[in-house]
């Protein structure tokens, strides 16, 4: 038996090794290198490889970077909460109320996601702009007298655009979690006298929690790294830390500082994600 296991283990390892080696070379090594890089300094074109914490001092101490970091976290958290809250009823509707053609619904939800990301962001600019679709429609219907200006080039625009961009990523994990719920548990709750609301909070929601946590993390983490949406629809108030990382690697030509900013935001977001994961695990998974 032991021999068989060893042979099987060897076969498995051999089979996965090309992919594993690729990821080691193209992902693990570069990530380690970025970390090392963030402790170096760059003077115009020459790299000084003396280890120093100066980049981190600058990244954490400069008011501009602090503002950008806080704003990125704030925007990402708001985007995540809005996206997940908007997505939950859809996932719930699909799982509990749609009986036929579920697959078609799922497909329709993912189609807009396959439009060019750049163009989707740009089109939100068209929708939300001063002379945009939204304002024209409201003006035409007589709901407002002059165009609304608080919906473009600020945080609201970033939140709307990103909530749209990440919708399918929030809906699918929640839907899968809801589908897995044993329907007889819900019947049992009703038979034992729970009202629909009470049943929802005591049975459905805790059991859907793994899906909600997955959706939260899937939306939160990449949002911090987005620099297109802030740049196109965010205006100056909507710029985020990724825009600064991009600038440091581009125009500002200070890659070590950019690396320190990138590592810092990854560490912060990693800690937050871990926190969400732990809290989610505590809250969910069993009927209470």
């Amino acid at each position: 038996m032991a021999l068989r296991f060893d042979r099987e283990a060897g076969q498995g390892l051999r089979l996965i090794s090309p992919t594993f080696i690729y990821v080691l070379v193209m992902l693990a090594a570069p990530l380690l290198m970025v970390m090392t890089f963030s402790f170096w300094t760059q003077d115009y074109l020459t790299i000084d490889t003396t280890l120093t914490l100066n980049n981190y001092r600058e990244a954490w101490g400069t008011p501009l970077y602090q503002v950008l970091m806080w704003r990125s976290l704030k925007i990402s958290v708001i985007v995540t909460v809005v996206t997940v809250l908007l997505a939950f009823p859809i996932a719930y509707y699909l799982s509990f109320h749609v009986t036929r053609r579920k697959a078609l619904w799922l497909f329709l939800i993912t189609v807009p996601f396959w439009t060019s990301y750049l163009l989707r962001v740009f089109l939100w600019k068209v929708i939300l702009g001063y002379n945009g679709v939204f304002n024209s429609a409201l003006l035409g219907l007589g709901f407002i007298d002059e165009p609304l200006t608080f919906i473009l080039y600020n945080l609201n625009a970033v939140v709307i655009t990103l909530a749209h961009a990440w919708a399918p990523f929030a809906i699918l994990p929640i839907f899968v979690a809801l589908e897995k719920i044993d329907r007889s548990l819900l019947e049992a709750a009703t038979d034992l006298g729970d009202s629909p609301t009470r049943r929802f909070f005591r049975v459905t929601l805790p059991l859907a929690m793994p899906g909600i946590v997955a959706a939260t993390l899937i939306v939160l983490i990449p949002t911090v790294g987005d620099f297109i949406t802030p740049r196109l629809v965010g205006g100056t108030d909507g710029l985020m830390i990724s825009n600064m990382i991009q600038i440091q690697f581009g125009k500002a030509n200070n890659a070590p500082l950019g690396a320190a900013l990138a590592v810092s935001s990854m560490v912060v977001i990693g800690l937050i994600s871990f926190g969400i994961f732990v809290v989610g695990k505590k809250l969910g998974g069993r009927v209470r």
Partner: protein
Amino acid sequence: MKWLASRWLAVYAVVYMIFLYAPVILLPLFALNTSTIIAFPLSGFTTDWFVGLWYTDTLHTALGNSMLVGLSTALLSTLLGAFAARASARFAFPGKTGIVGLIMLPLVLPEIIIAVALLVMLNQLGMPLSLWTVVGGHVLICTPFAIAILSSAYRGLDRELEEVSFDLGESRWGTFRRVTLPLVLPGVISSLLITFTISLDEFIIAFFLTGTDVTLPVYIWSQLRFPAKLPSVMALGTILLVVSVVLLIVAEALRRRSAARQGIDTTLAGV
């Protein structure tokens, strides 16, 4: 009560779908509109913007580059994905969770981090940026998707079928060709299509890692700065959307066919 809740949810679902489709519907509208200003009211119908694309050489170069990157990415990531999916579906080996976790990591890593990390490494090694460095990055982010699709294909594969084939005297290669491959082929094709589509639309990694050769999204990004170019960009976007949707429908149909062949419930598999 249940009826009322269902009604409200249905209304909400419709409103949400309008929200999801709002930008997608505008795309062809402005692509077929005569005015260069992207705003309402629409001024008239024209197909000039589509015709104009035919004569834009820089676009054709970008399209060619994207095809090269997309096809290479699709082939490589599906191949790497097949190894990993097969290994994790069929074998138990030490360190499996960690290895698979690392391979799936790009799924939750912001693309800018992947792009920046690869850029730093390439610069340190003194390697010039080119379309191949973009492929390198794209394979990284596409492989997890390939694994997700292929895992469900492999999981449904009955191990006994292969054993029976061995017992009946087929060689390892013969078994692969005559038993395994036909059963997982729809999954493989669906993986090729999905990874190609992802690569075709990926901007951030391409933006950081490409040299002088631009891919299609990088080209679009450069065009967004010029207001006069916008209608042609809309026309281009419309074509890309139609192509992606067709590819996705084919991928989905194939995936379902493979699932049905293996008797898996189609609503949940692979989601």
